[in-house]
């Protein structure tokens, strides 16, 4: 395939991934890498580099909107970013020593988890007593709602922090945003309201991904010719998706997307185990 045709195809699939990722809340980055590697034969490291860059674009683009609405908790985000950035640096360094086939298997497992996470009924995190550490770090806050300002307390700060290291590790290891895991840590573990968790997670993804990106740059994973259509495609798709989101019922779409992600996961696992990478 010549470069022009290849670029057009990559742009189109990235835009679709970004659009569906924004509509379903799964994020576009997580499906870009399997599509590039399995369907278009791109090397796994180039795909991870392009995906990580696109993750920064969508996170920063979306965070701009959320920060203004007053949902994201900047203190929670900044505190937990210590863990996610350290994790991302560790993960990005590990890509140099872990064989591509093992990375593909890890990717498959994360994809399966994301697919499952996106379709299961969400049980809100139980409200717990505030953690003294949360008070010392002024993590307790409030957000605007229709019925007025809602105050919330943050619990299990240390456990959440540790889990965020894991989320950062996966982000650097696989070139993804790992938003799903960040949301689980905040919403399920730390008892932060879902809306605040998702927007704060989005806000953190860009910084986490940037921490992995420096090391990806030093290893040569970020190729301009490939990263360009992926980044522009995912960005355009996710901006469109976010605009659609307000009026659509996403349950059916979410299911379809989860099936696609599940299929990609199995293909990724199979390719990894059979040593195709």
């Amino acid at each position, binding site marked *: 395939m010549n470069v022009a045709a290849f670029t057009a195809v990559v742009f189109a699939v990235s835009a679709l991934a970004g659009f569906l990722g924004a509509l379903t809340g799964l994020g576009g980055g997580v499906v870009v890498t399997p599509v590039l590697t399995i369907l278009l034969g791109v090397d796994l490291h180039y795909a991870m580099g392009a995906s990580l860059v696109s993750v920064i674009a969508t996170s920063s*683009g979306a965070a701009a909107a959320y920060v203004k609405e007053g949902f994201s908790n900047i203190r929670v985000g900044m505190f937990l970013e210590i863990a996610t950035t350290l994790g991302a640096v560790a993960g990005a360094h590990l890509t140099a020593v872990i064989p591509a086939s093992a990375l593909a298997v890890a990717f498959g497992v994360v994809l399966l988890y994301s697919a499952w996470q996106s379709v299961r009924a969400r049980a809100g995190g139980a409200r717990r007593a505030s953690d003294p550490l949360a008070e010392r*770090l002024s993590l307790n806050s409030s957000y605007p709602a229709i019925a007025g300002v809602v105050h919330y307390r943050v619990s299990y700060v240390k456990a959440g922090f540790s889990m965020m290291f894991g989320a950062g590790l996966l982000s650097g290891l696989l070139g993804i945003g790992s938003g799903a895991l960040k949301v689980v840590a905040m919403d399920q573990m730390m008892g932060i309201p879902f809306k605040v968790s998702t927007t704060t997670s989005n806000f953190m993804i860009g910084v986490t991904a940037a921490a992995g990106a420096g*090391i990806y740059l030093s290893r040569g994973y970020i190729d301009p010719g490939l*990263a360009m259509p992926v980044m522009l495609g995912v960005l355009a798709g996710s901006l469109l998706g976010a605009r659609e989101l307000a009026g659509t019922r996403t349950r059916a779409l979410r299911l379809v997307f989860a099936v696609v992600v599940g299929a990609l996961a199995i293909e990724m696992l199979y390719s990894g185990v059979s040593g195709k990478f």
Partner: protein
Amino acid sequence: MTDERFDSMIASLLRTGVALSAGLAFAGGLWFLEVSGRGIAHYGRFTADVRGLGALARLPGPQALIFAGLLVLIATPVARVVFSLVAFALQRDRVYIVCTTLVLAVLLYSIGTALW
């Protein structure tokens, strides 16, 4: 500085960074397709040709322009953290001055690895 004012400045910083980066990558992308569009795409084997920040000087014009856009994109969250550090310093919030400095140190370390 109030938190609301601070939030709204962060929002415009992020939006500007993404728009500038996308603009550079788009312009570089059109140029790249015009120059190399008929060549054969070869991303199947990893070669690590574009390695480190020095690649900006070594790459041909179109790819260098795209690369500059990607660097702006990577710099956007870093700028956001620097901005937060200034805001926390103005609020004399010691705990968050420490947290933000730690995050910034990790980011600068990561980008530092790409210098060589």
